[in-house]
C-alpha cells in the first residue's frame, strides 16, 4: 500500500515538476524567442525593454493577458466556446507524458509514464488537439473562425496520415513502440537521424577491431529511408502544429485571426500557448525519435551505476541535454516560420496526399525489404 502511495507521489512530483518547472516556462520563453528571433531575422530589435534583454517580457505578457477583459460575444455557443481553449492546450501537454526527458535522476527514470504504447499515445493525444480548434471555430458562430476550423480539421487529418506512417520504419527497426526502449536502441546503434554510429569509439581511444566489426553497408542503406522518414515526419509535424508554412487555420491575412478571432484575454492565451506547447511536444517527440533523446555521445548513459552525487549530476546533464535539443529544434521551427511564405490550400493538400503519403508508404516498404534481406 505504501509502495503504491510512494509511486503516486513520485509520479505526481515528476508530472508537476515537468509541467511547472520546465514546460510552462519553456512555452512562455518560446514566445519570447519567437519574437526576438523574428525581430533579428527582420533586422529589428524585438522586445528588449522589460528586464535585461527583455527577459521578463513573458511575465509582462502573462500579466497583460490575465488582466484583459474576458469577453464572451453574445452570439457564441457558450458551452463549447468555453470548452475549446482547454481542448487546445491540454492535449499537447498530455503528449509529453510518455516522452523520456532524461535518463534517471535520484534513481527515478525520467519519464512520467513508461508505457508500451508510447508513440501511439503521442499520436492519439496530439490529434485530439484538432478538437479544440474545430470547437473554437464552430462555437464562435462567425465566418472567419469557422473557415479556420474547417481548414484545420482537413489539414490535420491529411498530415496525421503521413505523420504516423513516416515513423513506422523506426518501429520496424526497433521492434517496439515504447519510447525509452527506442532511446535505448539509439544509444546502442546511433541516433536515427544517422544510424551509422560506429561502435568502439570512446573518449579514451578507438577500439579498431570493434569499429570494423560494427561497420556494415546495411547501416548506410538504412540511413536513406530513415532520413526520408525524418524529413516527412518533421514537415508533417510543422503541419500538425499549424506552424508556418502550414498555418492556414490562422492565416492572419485571409482569416483575420483564424479560429481564435472571437477570443480574448486568457482564453486567447490558451490557444496561443497551446500552439507553442504543441510545438514543444512535437519537438520533444522528434528529439526522442531521431536525435537520441537525452543521449550525449561519449558520456556514460547510466547515472544509477555511478556513486550518488556524480549520478545526480549526470542525470541533470541528461535532462538539460534533452531540453537543449528541444530548444534547438524550436529555434529551427521559428527560423522556418520567418523564412517561408504560407502555402495555398490546394498546394498543402497536394503535398500531403500526393507526396508525403506516398513517400511514407514507399519508405515503409523500403525499410521492410532492407530488414528482410539484411543479415542478422
Amino acid at each position, binding site marked *: 500500500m505504501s509502495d503504491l502511495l510512494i509511486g503516486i507521489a513520485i509520479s505526481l512530483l515528476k508530472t508537476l515538476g515537468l509541467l511547472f518547472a520546465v514546460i510552462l516556462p519553456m512555452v512562455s520563453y518560446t514566445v519570447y524567442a519567437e519574437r526576438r528571433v523574428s525581430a533579428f531575422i*527582420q*533586422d529589428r*530589435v524585438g522586445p528588449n525593454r522589460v528586464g535585461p534583454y527583455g527577459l521578463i517580457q513573458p511575465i509582462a505578457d502573462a500579466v497583460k493577458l490575465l488582466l484583459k477583459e474576458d469577453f464572451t460575444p453574445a452570439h457564441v455557443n457558450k458551452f463549447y466556446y468555453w470548452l475549446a481553449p482547454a481542448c487546445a492546450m491540454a492535449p499537447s501537454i498530455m503528449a509529453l507524458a510518455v516522452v523520456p526527458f532524461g535518463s534517471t535522476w535520484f534513481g527515478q527514470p525520467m519519464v512520467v509514464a513508461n508505457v508500451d504504447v508510447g508513440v501511439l499515445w503521442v499520436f492519439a493525444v496530439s490529434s485530439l488537439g484538432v478538437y479544440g480548434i474545430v470547437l473554437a471555430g464552430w462555437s464562435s458562430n462567425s465566418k472567419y473562425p469557422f473557415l479556420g476550423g474547417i481548414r484545420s480539421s482537413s489539414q490535420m487529418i491529411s498530415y496525421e496520415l503521413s505523420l504516423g506512417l513516416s515513423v513506422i520504419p523506426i518501429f520496424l527497426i526497433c521492434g517496439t513502440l515504447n519510447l525509452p526502449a527506442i532511446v535505448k536502441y539509439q544509444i546502442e546503434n546511433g541516433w536515427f537521424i544517422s544510424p551509422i554510429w560506429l561502435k568502439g569509439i570512446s573518449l579514451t581511444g578507438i577500439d579498431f577491431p570493434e569499429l570494423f566489426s560494427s561497420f556494415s553497408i546495411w547501416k548506410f542503406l538504412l540511413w536513406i529511408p530513415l532520413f526520408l522518414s525524418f524529413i516527412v515526419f518533421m514537415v508533417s509535424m510543422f503541419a500538425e502544429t499549424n506552424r508556418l508554412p502550414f498555418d492556414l487555420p490562422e492565416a492572419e491575412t485571409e482569416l483575420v485571426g483564424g479560429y481564435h478571432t472571437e477570443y480574448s484575454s486568457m482564453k486567447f492565451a490558451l490557444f496561443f500557448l497551446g500552439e507553442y506547447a504543441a510545438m514543444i511536444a512535437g519537438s520533444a517527440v522528434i528529439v526522442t525519435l531521431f536525435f537520441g533523446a537525452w543521449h550525449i555521445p561519449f558520456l556514460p548513459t547510466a547515472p544509477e551505476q555511478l556513486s550518488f552525487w556524480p549520478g545526480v549530476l549526470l542525470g541533470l546533464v541528461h535532462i538539460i541535454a534533452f531540453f537543449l535539443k528541444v530548444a534547438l529544434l524550436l529555434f529551427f521551427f521559428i527560423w522556418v516560420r520567418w*523564412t517561408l511564405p504560407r502555402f495555398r490550400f490546394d498546394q498543402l493538400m497536394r503535398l500531403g496526399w500526393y507526396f508525403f503519403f506516398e513517400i511514407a508508404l514507399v519508405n515503409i516498404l523500403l525499410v521492410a525489404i532492407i530488414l528482410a534481406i539484411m543479415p542478422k
Partner: protein
Amino acid sequence: MAYTVPRPKLTLAEKAYVPALIAGLGITIRHFFGILSGKKKVTMQYPDEKWDTHLPPHYRGAPTLVADDYGRERCVACQLCEFICPPRAITIKPGEIPEKDRWRKVEKYPEEFEIDMIRCIYCGLCEEVCPEQAIFLRKDYAITGLTRAEMVHDKKRLYELGGVMTGLVNKWNEKK
C-alpha cells in the same frame, strides 16, 4: 488581342523547391547572426539615443525668442511674424517702453508673446521675416504636453528655449 503571359520554363531544381528553400533559410540566418553580432545596423533606439547630435545646423525645430548681448529681449513687437505665420500660431500683445527707460528708442516690446505649438508647422517663416533676428527655430523637436494650455509657449518659455544669441545685427544699440 489576347496576350499570352509567357510562363518561365522551370528547371528541375526550381521545381523541386528545395534549393530555393535552403537558400531562403540561408538568407534569414545571415540576417539573424548579423543582428546578433551587431554587424548589421538597426534603427536608432529613439528614446535612449536622440537625434540631437545628428541634427544638421539648419534644422528647423521649435521657434524660440532670443536675448541679445545685453541680456535684453530683441523682439520689438513689430508683429511681422504674427502676420506671416501661416497657421496663425503666434499671438503678440505689444506694449510701449516707458519714457525714462534706457531703451526708450526701441519704443515697443511684446507684453505677451505666445506661440501655440499645436498649431506651429515649423515652416520657419517667422525666423525669415523677423527684422530684429529675434526669433529663431532651435533644435528642440520633441515638444510635448499633457494639456492644450501646456502646449502654448508663453514668453518665459520661449526665452528659456531660445537662450542668448550674440554677434548679430544690433540695430538698436547706442552706436550702430
